[in-house]
């Protein structure tokens, strides 16, 4: 005992010395944590403060007016809002169901040995930069789309003006052969968010406990009935959450939209084959060249609105995904 006292006390002083580090260590890490909060505050402050002039000038009413023309100090952001909502809506309409089906395939139907590699592949696809989707859209998809989809449909529908058909009518401001428009933007966005939705769907489907599947099988359910009533129904909150995250991505996407949507900023055309503009694309294309401070301020106000919408959407989506996948083994995609 006595022989150990000597080294022990040496160790003690050493410990005491380094224990002094505990508090500074805590403050150091806390400082960087605070920095993260500061980043959010900075973003919020910039878009709030930067848009002050525009808010004082028009309030939020300009969001629902047409006629974007910065040269005449005429700012109506409705085309941008409409373009954003319409293209993201189309994207969700296409990619939502398809993404869930891919998720079902990956978690239920795919041969077991292919599940891991295919899932990894889908995750890889989700990582491809959006500018590449836009580029592919321009060079490869638009020519195909114009020839085999846009022209036949607009020929068929003609100049219909009644509501649902007018969405598919021939555009007025640009020939349908130009290809760029809200519809194509929606499709490209759909292709882009598809891997995201598929990966999240897979994640929430694989954590459905096996006993739920067996419960249905044991009463004679077919495979699909099991998937529909046992698996999808169990994970529906998470699936909806995944779709909302996908929608959030589509709403905030700049490049893919900017490249294929066609930049019609003044008016809203009834046809989806007509060009339009999205909020993010508008900001990206005009802010670096904005001359007047009102112009810049208006663009920042649009950014603020976009920020608000995506935040709300993401909050709801996260809540849903978290709600279903917090069980053991469930891990929430950031």
């Amino acid at each position, binding site marked *: 005992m006595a022989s150990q006292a000597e080294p022990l006390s040496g160790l003690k002083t050493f410990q005491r010395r380094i224990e002094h580090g505990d508090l500074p260590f805590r403050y150091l890490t806390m400082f960087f944590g605070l920095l993260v909060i500061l980043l959010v505050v900075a973003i919020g402050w910039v878009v709030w403060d930067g848009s002050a002039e525009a808010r004082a000038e028009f309030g939020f009413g300009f969001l629902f007016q047409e006629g974007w023309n910065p040269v005449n100090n005429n700012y109506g952001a409705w085309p941008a809002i409409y373009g954003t909502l319409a293209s993201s809506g189309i994207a969700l309409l296409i990619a939502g169901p398809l993404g869930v089906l891919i998720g079902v395939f990956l978690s239920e139907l795919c041969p077991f040995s292919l599940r891991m590699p295919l899932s990894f592949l889908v995750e890889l696809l989700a990582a491809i930069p959006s500018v590449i989707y836009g580029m592919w859209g321009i060079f490869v998809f638009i020519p195909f789309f114009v020839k085999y989809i846009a022209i036949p449909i607009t020929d068929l529908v003609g100049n219909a003006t009644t509501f649902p058909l007018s969405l598919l009518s021939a555009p007025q401001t640009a020939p349908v052969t130009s290809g760029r428009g809200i519809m194509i933007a929606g499709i490209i966005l759909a292709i882009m968010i598809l891997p995201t939705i598929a990966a999240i769907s897979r994640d929430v489907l694989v954590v459905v406990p096996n006993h*739920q599947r067996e419960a249905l*099988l044991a*009463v004679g359910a077919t495979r699909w009935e099991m998937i529909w009533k046992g698996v999808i129904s169990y994970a529906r909150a998470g699936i909806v959450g995944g779709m909302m995250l996908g929608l959030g991505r589509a709403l905030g996407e700049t490049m893919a939209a900017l490249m294929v949507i066609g930049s019609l900023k003044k008016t809203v055309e009834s046809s989806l084959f007509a060009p339009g503009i999205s909020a993010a694309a508008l900001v990206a294309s005009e802010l670096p060249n904005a001359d007047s401070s009102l112009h810049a301020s208006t663009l920042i106000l649009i950014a603020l609105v976009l920020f608000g919408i995506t935040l709300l959407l993401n909050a709801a989506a996260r809540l849903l995904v978290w709600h279903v996948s917090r069980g053991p083994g469930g891990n929430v995609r950031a």
Partner: protein
Amino acid sequence: MADATKPTPDVTGSTGAARTNGRGPAETNNVTLEDLKPYYGSFQAVHAVNATIEPRSVTAMIGPSGCGKSTVLRCINRMHENIPGARVEGRVLLGEQNVYGRGIAPQTIRRRIGMVFQQPNPLKMLSIAGNVAVGLRLEGHRESEIKEKVEASLKGAALWDEVKDKLNDSGMALSGGQQQRLCIARAIAMEPEVLLLDEPCSALDPISTYKIEELLVELKKRYTIVIVTHNMQQAARISDRTMVFMVDITDKKPKGMLVEYGETAQVFTNPQDKRTQDYISGEIG
């Protein structure tokens, strides 16, 4: 209680149930296991099993952990093949019909051979009534008929009195024992010919266990029942015949095997196999 133990899953209309004669399953088919060899991938989990299960009786499967009771049980209604890589060699006959015959869809088999699992597994998204009715709904029975059958099955599972006021509540809101009886109700609502139960009482308290045992004795009047249990008293109490499984450790990878099958009384009092004797007397297992 008296009411509950007198189940009358009576279907006189018989629109959706051409196969019933109104008094439970018409058939009194044997279940025959012929050279049944379950595999997990390339690993054969159990030596070939040959046995005939008598109709309208309780057959118990006992044996130490890992001896393949669940595996064999799940082979009977083709639940086994649901596990990735799992497959079956040999035959299971339901009457004359090979369960693994060509062109037979597993769901038709599972519909005729119901199953209750070790963990109570009510469907989370459905209500109590919805849980019981789920199989019937899939088969497209009329709602009025479904309502009757739900009530009859819940009575049959001795659960009616406890849940009749909250049929629309979630099935998850019940106690473990109630959940397990709900699962039994779900299985018997389909009026299967055979009912497979995999350690249905292992997660339950003695009272719930007792209730379920009572229920099984009642149910065997109309169903062929196969039950896996770790509880030898339970097997002795309720079963007519008993299968004893053991782990064969002579191979490199231990395999399960059926070592003895006979009348319960005889298996427990006068076992033919040395290993059974040791197991029952508590020396192994």
